Every structure is written in C-alpha cells, then in structure tokens.
C-alpha cells in the first residue's frame, strides 16, 4: 500500500505523468486505437430512453450517500448475512493483506490454476504478480483483460481494458501466444479467444472476481458482465473468491436495481448488461453446479481516509467509466499515462487519495475542469471540485513548484492594488504588441508551454482601462 505519511516516494507510479502523456500523444497506434471506441456516443443514446434521467441520478447519489453515511452498519449487516449463508468474509486493511489472504485460500484449498474475471481492486494490489510468484497459474478471462495480460501490460480503461490496442496488436498477440495462424478479423479473433478461454474455464480450480456491489440485506455479491466470464468464474471452479472495496456496499436489492439503470447506460449505453449475477453463498445441497467455497475479501487500502472528509463524495463511484469516456484529456492521452489503476477524472481524484497526494502531483492539475465528467457522472461526484480541492491541498503542503507559487502570489498582490495593476497591464499590453510584431502574433514565449503548440494572439497595445478612460475624457 502506498504510504501517505508525507514522504514523496521515489518512482511513485503516478509520477512521470507528463513524459508518459507525451509518449502516448506521439504513439500513432494508441491514438488510432483510442478513436475506435465511442462510448460517449453510446451513453448519449442509452440515457435517452429514460424520461427522468436527472431524477434517477439524484436518487442514485442519495443511495450511495446513505451507504457511506452508515458504512460500518451496512458492512456488518452484509457480513452477518453472508456468513449465515456460508460465505467466508475476510477483511483487508492493505493491498498486501489482499494478496496474503488470496494466497492462503489458494494454498488451503490446494488449487493450482486460477481464472479471473475483472477486478480493479486486484490491480491495485498487483495480485496476479503475487500469485504467479507463489507458483499459481493465473488467467484473466475478460477478453480485454486477457489481451492486456498476454501483452504483459495493465488495463488502460476500467471497463474497456484494451481500448489502447488495435486489432492488429491483438492478431499478433494471439498468433504468438496461441501458436495459431494469424487472423485479423475481429469476429475470428473473438472466436479464437472463446475457444482458448473455454478450456481455462473448465479447468480452473479457483475463480477470482471483483464485485460491483455487495448487498447488506441478503449478504450477496452482485456482478455485472457482458461476456459471461463473470458467470463462468463464479459457477465453474470449486472455489470462488470475490474482492471488493468497503465502499461498494448497498443496503437493498431495490437500491441495486435503481443504480443498475444508470451504471450500464453510463458505461456502454446498454439498458442492462447481458448478465447481472447475484451470488449468495456456495453450492447448496442438491445443487449440480456452483463453487464449494465462496469467499469475499472486503478491502480498505486507503478508502477510510476519504470518509468524513471533503473527499468522501469520490467513494460514491460505481466504476462506470463515463468520466474518462467524456474527458478530453483521457481521450487524447489514454489510461496508461495516469500511471495507476484508475485513469481519467476519477483516477485523478482517487489515485492521490489512495497512494498519497505527494505521489501523484500532476493528476489533479492535468484537467481543464471542463466539468464534462461531473455532468455525466451517474452518482453526481463533483469531480472538478474534488480536483480543485486536491490542488489546494498541494499548495497548503508546498507541493507546487516555487516559481508557480511565487507567480501566483505576485499576481494576486498586484491585482489587489488597482493602481499598480493598471500600470503593470499597461506595460504588458505595450510589450505584448511589440513582441507580436507586424502579424500581431506571439510565436514563442520561452519557458511557456502555451507556445509549444499554439501561437499567442498579441495584445493590442492599450488596455481596456486606458481606452475607456480616453473615451470618457473625450
């Protein structure tokens, strides 16, 4: 788990943002791949069939707030019901705890081969690496996750993990790893993945899943998938381990039903995902299928740090991905530039909170605050406001470069003093015009990121203040 004691971690994962963004902006393949997806368009069509989308959004935010307001009570209620139904509930304070608990379960049950359906929390803890280091075979089964695993990479989007890959990339990976003739048709590639993964589903001994929600009322785990790998993972292997954050608890099945209307529409535009699975405990007497053991690992790993603070609203997140799908920055640089598990606006809020704001200084700043994310968020997380608050925390903790701090102070000092301000801007207007020259355009300002990609229209030589005073006099 990332330390947040104040010490800046060298080589922290979310540092180096600018360099990674630069690489991605200049990677033609990634740029091409990112433009293949239009999840924003899909969402727009998806919400159009709700005649009161904004009212449902308000209700969904209230449901999430109700969960967070009494979080311990709902979690205790979940634990009580889940335990009664035969689920073993585990608690992980740190990322290391998650990996330790999974490894213990795997050893105790004597499994060798593990199949996984998507779990972003397991990405936080690098669970696959930990399991492989202990000699377990781990296969990701979500098609996007599988592609990313074959490539030895991390997901670049929370619901479309391989959004940065083209079909040619996938064709190369499959030919190399499956040792089959190279195919380039997307349908054929999907079929080939189905064939190879089917073998894994049937031979997997442990299934690891995430959890979209856990339900306090019934002690159930709720999973939303389209491919069916979530169902396979929770039905076929003899042990099922689900990993989810403490914030994912919902009071009732009705609450889940309300939120599902927004989750799938916000994510992919679908009115519902193909599979919504509610698992409550292991195989029951007489059942012909289902796991013999069901475990749920409930994870803190930084989440309680947000509770009761001005960051709590971020814990409402239901992981639909709409904020990144609508983010002009994400759309251009992709998920890997963000450096940690959650990219886009929600990542720019969660990452500094989870791994320490000193370890992700760029993230809350690398946003235009256009609020497209806040407007589409199905649970009304005020993402730009939270990023702005993180910027304030950076200033309070002296994490901004001194030039920037000094510049702001000087400017604010001047702007407080209209006489001096008027004089300074008068000079700046004249200087700007003379730099602008005949075409009234500044082409280069040393040390200023603006002119790296843009010209700067030059000031006209006199300020409004001067011209207005002249006009009044005349």
């Amino acid at each position, binding site marked *: 788990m990332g330390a947040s004691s104040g010490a800046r971690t060298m080589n922290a994962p979310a540092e180096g943002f600018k360099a990674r963004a630069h690489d991605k902006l200049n990677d033609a393949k990634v740029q091409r791949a990112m433009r293949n997806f239009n999840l924003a368009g899909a969402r727009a069509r998806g919400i159009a069939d709700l005649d009161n989308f904004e009212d449902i959004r308000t209700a969904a935010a209230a449901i999430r707030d109700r969960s967070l307001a009494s979080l311990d009570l709902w979690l205790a209620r979940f634990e009580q019901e889940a335990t009664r139904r035969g689920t073993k509930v585990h608690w992980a304070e740190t990322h290391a705890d998650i990996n330790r608990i999974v490894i213990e379960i795997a050893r105790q049950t004597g499994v060798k081969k593990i199949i996984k359906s998507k779990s972003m929390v397991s990405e936080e803890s690098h669970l696959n690496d930990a399991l492989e280091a202990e000699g377990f075979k781990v296969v990701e089964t979500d098609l996007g996750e599988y592609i990313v695993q074959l490539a030895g990479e991390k997901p670049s989007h929370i619901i479309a993990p391989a959004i940065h890959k083209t079909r040619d990339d996938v064709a190369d990976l499959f030919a190399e790893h499956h040792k089959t003739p190279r195919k380039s048709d997307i349908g054929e590639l999907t079929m080939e993945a189905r064939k190879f993964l089917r073998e894994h589903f049937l031979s997997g001994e442990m299934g690891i899943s995430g959890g979209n929600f856990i339900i306090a009322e019934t002690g159930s785990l709720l999973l939303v998938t389209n491919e069916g790998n979530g169902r396979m993972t929770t039905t076929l292997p003899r042990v099922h381990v689900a990993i989810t954050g403490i914030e994912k608890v919902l009071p009732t099945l009705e609450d889940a039903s309300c939120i599902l209307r927004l989750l799938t529409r916000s994510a992919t535009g679908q009115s519902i995902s193909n599979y919504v699975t509610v698992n409550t405990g292991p195989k029951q007497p007489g059942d012909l299928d289902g796991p013999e053991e069901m475990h749920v690992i409930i994870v803190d790993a930084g989440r309680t740090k947000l509770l009761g603070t001005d960051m709590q609203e971020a814990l409402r997140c239901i992981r639909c991905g709409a904020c990144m799908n609508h983010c002009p920055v994400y759309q251009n640089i992709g998920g890997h530039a963000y450096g940690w598990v959650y990219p886009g606006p929600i990542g720019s809020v969660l990452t500094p909170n989870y791994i320490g704001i000193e370890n992700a200084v760029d993230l809350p700043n690398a946003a235009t605050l256009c609020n497209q994310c806040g407007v589409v968020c199905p649970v009304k997380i005020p993402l730009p406001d939270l990023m702005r608050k993180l910027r304030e925390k950076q200033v309070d903790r002296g994490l901004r470069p001194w030039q920037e701090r000094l510049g*702001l102070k000087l400017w604010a000092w001047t702007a407080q003093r209209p006489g001096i301000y008027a004089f300074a801007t008068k000079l700046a207007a004249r200087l700007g015009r003379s730099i602008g020259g005949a075409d009234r355009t500044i082409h280069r300002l040393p040390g200023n990121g603006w002119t790296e990609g843009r010209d700067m229209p030059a000031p006209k030589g006199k300020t409004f203040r001067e011209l207005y005073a002249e006009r009044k006099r005349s």
Partner: protein
Amino acid sequence: MSDQKLRVGLFVTCLVDLMRPSIGFSALKLLESAGCDVTVPTSQTCCGQPAYNSGDRAAAQSLARKVVAEFRDCEYVVVPSGSCSGMIRAHYAELLAEFPADRPEVERLSARTYELTDFLVNVAKLDRVPGRFAGNCTYHDSCSGLREMGVKKQPRALLGQVPGLTLNEMATPEYCCGFGGTFAVKYGEISARIADRKCEDIASTGADAVVLGDLGCMLNIEGRLKRRGDRTKVYHVAEVLAGMTDE
C-alpha cells in the same frame, strides 16, 4: 420594459482588459443598445479564478472579496465571459465560506451576476442587435458558460438576429477546446492536442469564423488555428453582435 433603466455594472475581466479591449467595448455597446445604464468600476481587476483553480485559496479569496465590494451598488453585474461569471455565480459561495459575515453580500452578488448573452436575452430582452456580418459562422460553447451558467440558446438566439450571418453548427460544439486556464500553459502539449479536435471540427463546418463567448477559449482556439495555418477567424460573440469585428 418600464422607463426605469437597468443599472448594470460591467465586469470587463482581466483577460479582456489586457488582450482584447474591443470585447469590452462591444459589451458596452450592446448593453447600451438594450437601454441599460452601464457603469464600469475602475478599480476592477480579476475575479480570482486563476488562483482558485491553481489551489491558492487565500489569493482567490482576497480577490473575490474585492469584487464583492466593487459591485455592491450595481443592480446587475454583467460579464462578457461564461467562466468569470461562472466563477462568481457558481463558486464564490464555496470560496468565501470561511467568511460567514460576507455571506449575504456574496449571495446577493451571485444572484444578480449574468453572462452577457444570457443577460441580453433573458433580462434586458434585447430584440435588435446593432451588428451585421456577411458569412458563415460556427459557435463554440465554452465549458463554464454552458455548464455553470446555462448559456446555450442565448448566443444562438442573438446571432440569429444578425443580418447576413448564417450559423453552421459543428459536430461537437460542447466539447472542451483544451484551454482550462493555467492548464494550457502547464500541459501545453495535451492542451494543444485537445484544441486540434476543436480545430478539425470547426474546419469541417466550412465556416468563415468561429464565434464564442470566452476570451480564454478564444486565445486558445485562435492560437492553435494559426499554428496549423488555418485562416478561420475567431470572434467573441459580443464583437459580432455589436458589429465590432474589425477593431
């Protein structure tokens, strides 16, 4: 409308003051055409947004309190910018929460602060604009104006009154241009790339000019268009409505 003139305080904004005074004079002309009695407080400088968005809360607070005091006596405050008017209306209450004694004044200011086109359409009910324009325009919705001030139909309604002007909508007028205040300087490469999408969208309309309501977006889009060698003109909506596109 009664004989009583609307008493308007014009908040010119620091960017207009320094970079493009013609926008301020256009706003003045439009407000006067709408029969308003306009004052321009001379001590005004900046709304504090750059400091607010950079996390320097103390600096932002001192400037915000200055604005609150400067416009205390104006019946309305009108701003030729969605982002500066949005700063006042949508953020001052939160920014000045530590000053509970200021609260009534802050709320009074927020309630009577308007973005220019919103004010012209919904308060002053301007029904004949002075400008004329020969050509095709496309309109970019600046983020703050759109999402904080609800500015969408107002500029289009006014542009619709301009003789000779045809409006060709771009595919995604609500998509951010990539400006984002200091973002454009700190993350110039990303910002320019976002601006590219806007430039492509503008080009695909074949418009002679792109019109918008915020000088920040304007500098960004104009700067990127120029760098790309694209000669499409960029105007503030006030310049077009006032017929002051040559100044």
